[in-house]
């Protein structure tokens, strides 16, 4: 399989640097580092703690709710929600604290886990209307295989639906407000133009979420327009005509995923897994999909940033762990191969172990990886980084 040019494709710096405060490196696409070697996500975390007047922001939220509140029995807000801790928190707060009438919208996982399904059921039982969008299984599998082979990420078809389906439901149910949890671009490091405003521009979708490849791309690979339709956004005109606005609760309320977990345990019947997820130490984040592990693993290969690096970075910014603890966690778990569902994953995609490994190796960039007698090894690891300025 032809070697990929990760540096060009994702516009990565050729020299690897780690943030001085967290575990993330400058290899995360779109992240920026300041002159002190601190990443944009850490700077935002600090800004969020010290500069934002959260009482003022909550007043803005109440105004926003009042602007969209219908009071006639119709839904007045769409909450994209898998039944996980974050979406469930958003829906529960909007309904029971701010008196909105939300419709929770779920896009089906590629291959659901039992715990994920149980949590979605518990969420619905805790008092919500929910629509579950489930696309054609054969086409989803085909797209999963294609996106694994061509993009090095099995999650692409899921991300299409997860992003676009709530907009379909907004148009269909005449709902003008879509409320997400956190803005990942801001909280985890990305394009900071969204840091200081509550909304997301719909035209950013292709760039941030679809790696520049909208669903239509796959026509070239023999998927018909009709089969791609459920993965596509509603027409731009219909979104505009509906006056759809996308907002983030994280703009209005202090966002703390761990506290969301406790909140959902109390209020929406959420249960964490009893086992940690492969590739990380955590038990309560991203539990819904058996394919998860391969998405994170390929991210580790492409950018040297695995699931633990991201989880630890976020917990460091939230003050839950120290950088030193994060480094120990990354060293221990980041490169772990997701073995548990591997055969299922291969069968689901219809590819062989050799084919998958060829995909993996095609994404190993020379600026990140070297081959030793023991196997592949990262050239730069955060656990060797002392956090001192390297400039």
């Amino acid at each position: 399989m032809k070697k990929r040019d990760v540096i060009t494709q994702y516009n990565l710096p050729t020299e690897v640097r780690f943030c001085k405060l967290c575990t993330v490196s400058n290899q995360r696409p779109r992240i920026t580092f300041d002159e002190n070697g601190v990443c944009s996500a850490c700077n935002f975390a600090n800004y969020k703690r010290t500069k934002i007047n959260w009482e003022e922001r909550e007043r803005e939220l109440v105004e926003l709710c009042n602007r969209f509140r219908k009071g006639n029995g119709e839904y007045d807000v769409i909450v994209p929600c898998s039944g996980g801790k974050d979406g469930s928190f958003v829906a529960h707060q909007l309904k029971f604290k701010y008196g909105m009438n939300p419709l929770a919208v779920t896009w089906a996982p590629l291959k659901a886990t039992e715990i994920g399904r149980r949590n979605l059921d518990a969420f619905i039982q805790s008092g919500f209307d929910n629509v579950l969008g489930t696309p054609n299984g054969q086409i989803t599998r085909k797209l999963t295989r294609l996106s694994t082979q061509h993009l090095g990420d099995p999650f692409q078809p899921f991300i299409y639906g997860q992003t676009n389906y709530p907009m379909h439901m907004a148009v269909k149910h005449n709902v003008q407000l879509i409320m997400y949890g956190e803005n990942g671009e801001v909280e985890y490091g990305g394009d900071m133009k969204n840091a200081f405003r509550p909304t997301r521009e719909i035209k950013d979708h292709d760039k941030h979420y679809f790696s520049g490849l909208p669903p239509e791309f796959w026509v070239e690979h023999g998927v018909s327009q009709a089969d791609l339709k459920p993965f596509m956004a509603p027409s731009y005109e219909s979104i505009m005509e509906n006056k759809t606005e996308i907002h983030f609760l994280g703009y209005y309320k202090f966002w703390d995923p761990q506290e969301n977990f406790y909140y959902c345990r109390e209020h929406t019947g959420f249960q964490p897994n009893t086992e940690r997820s492969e590739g990380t130490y955590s038990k309560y984040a991203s539990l819904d999909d058996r394919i998860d592990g391969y998405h994170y693993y390929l991210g580790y290969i492409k950018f040297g940033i695995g699931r633990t690096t991201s989880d630890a970075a976020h917990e460091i910014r939230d003050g839950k762990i120290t950088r030193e603890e994060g480094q120990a966690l990354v060293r221990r778990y980041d490169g772990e191969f997701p073995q548990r569902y591997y055969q299922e994953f291969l069968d689901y995609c219809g590819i062989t172990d050799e084919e998958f490994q060829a995909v993996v190796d095609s994404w190993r960039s020379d600026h990140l990886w070297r081959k030793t007698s023991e196997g592949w090894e990262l050239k730069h690891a955060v656990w060797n980084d002392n956090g001192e300025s390297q400039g």
Partner: protein
Amino acid sequence: MKKIRLIPRLDIKGPKLIKGIHLEGLRVMGDPQEFARRYYEQGADELLYVDVVASLYGRNSLHDIIERAARDVFVPLTVTGGIRSVEDVRKILRAGADKIGINTAATKRPELIREVARKFGSQCMVLSIEAKRIGDGRWEAYTDNGREKTGLDVVEWAQRGVELGAGEILLTSVDREGTREGFDTELLSAVSSVVPVPVIASGGMGRPEDAEKAVRQGSADAVAMADILHYGRSTVGEIRAAAKAAGLNLRTV
């Protein structure tokens, strides 16, 4: 009739008391010393300190906390988490602990149990087992705060541990930990029916009545509790009164 002990469990990370769910999502509760003093004043029989990240980070940081506790808390202190050698045991006993619990290091090298029991006595050697249900009437022992499998069958491992010299078993249900759903009484009874030493029930205490169930249905000798006390949903005194009213034999405070 045996006397049942009530044991507040203090999970520690760094300098803080924390509380998780399934030993995860560790929430900072405050200064462990304040909680320890409060539970002592409420009439706790013993205190259990668990360094929940010791194995994960390969460190062992309870010395200072235990030294402070031993100065104004006058009940037996059990300390577990990150103890890997006879030397570690000596240090923590010197800091003021009365008993030590071992989990991870014992699963890797069971001989350590014998060494500790020989050196300091069985009454000092608590085998800590984190049990995760893997089928009907079957549990696997986990380490690293419920993160890593060992492949060991919990009941067999408990028996082996006692043969090697463990004088007590701290039995934590990973499935129930932090859930407030009550103890896994099947697990408790599976272990307590085959070992001659006391078994401490841990994981799941949600209401005062759960203590009675652990004793009557699970034959536990002691009950560890965290969430119910840390969040102030009940006190050691209230739990003692409820257990006494239910006819259990407890120390009179």
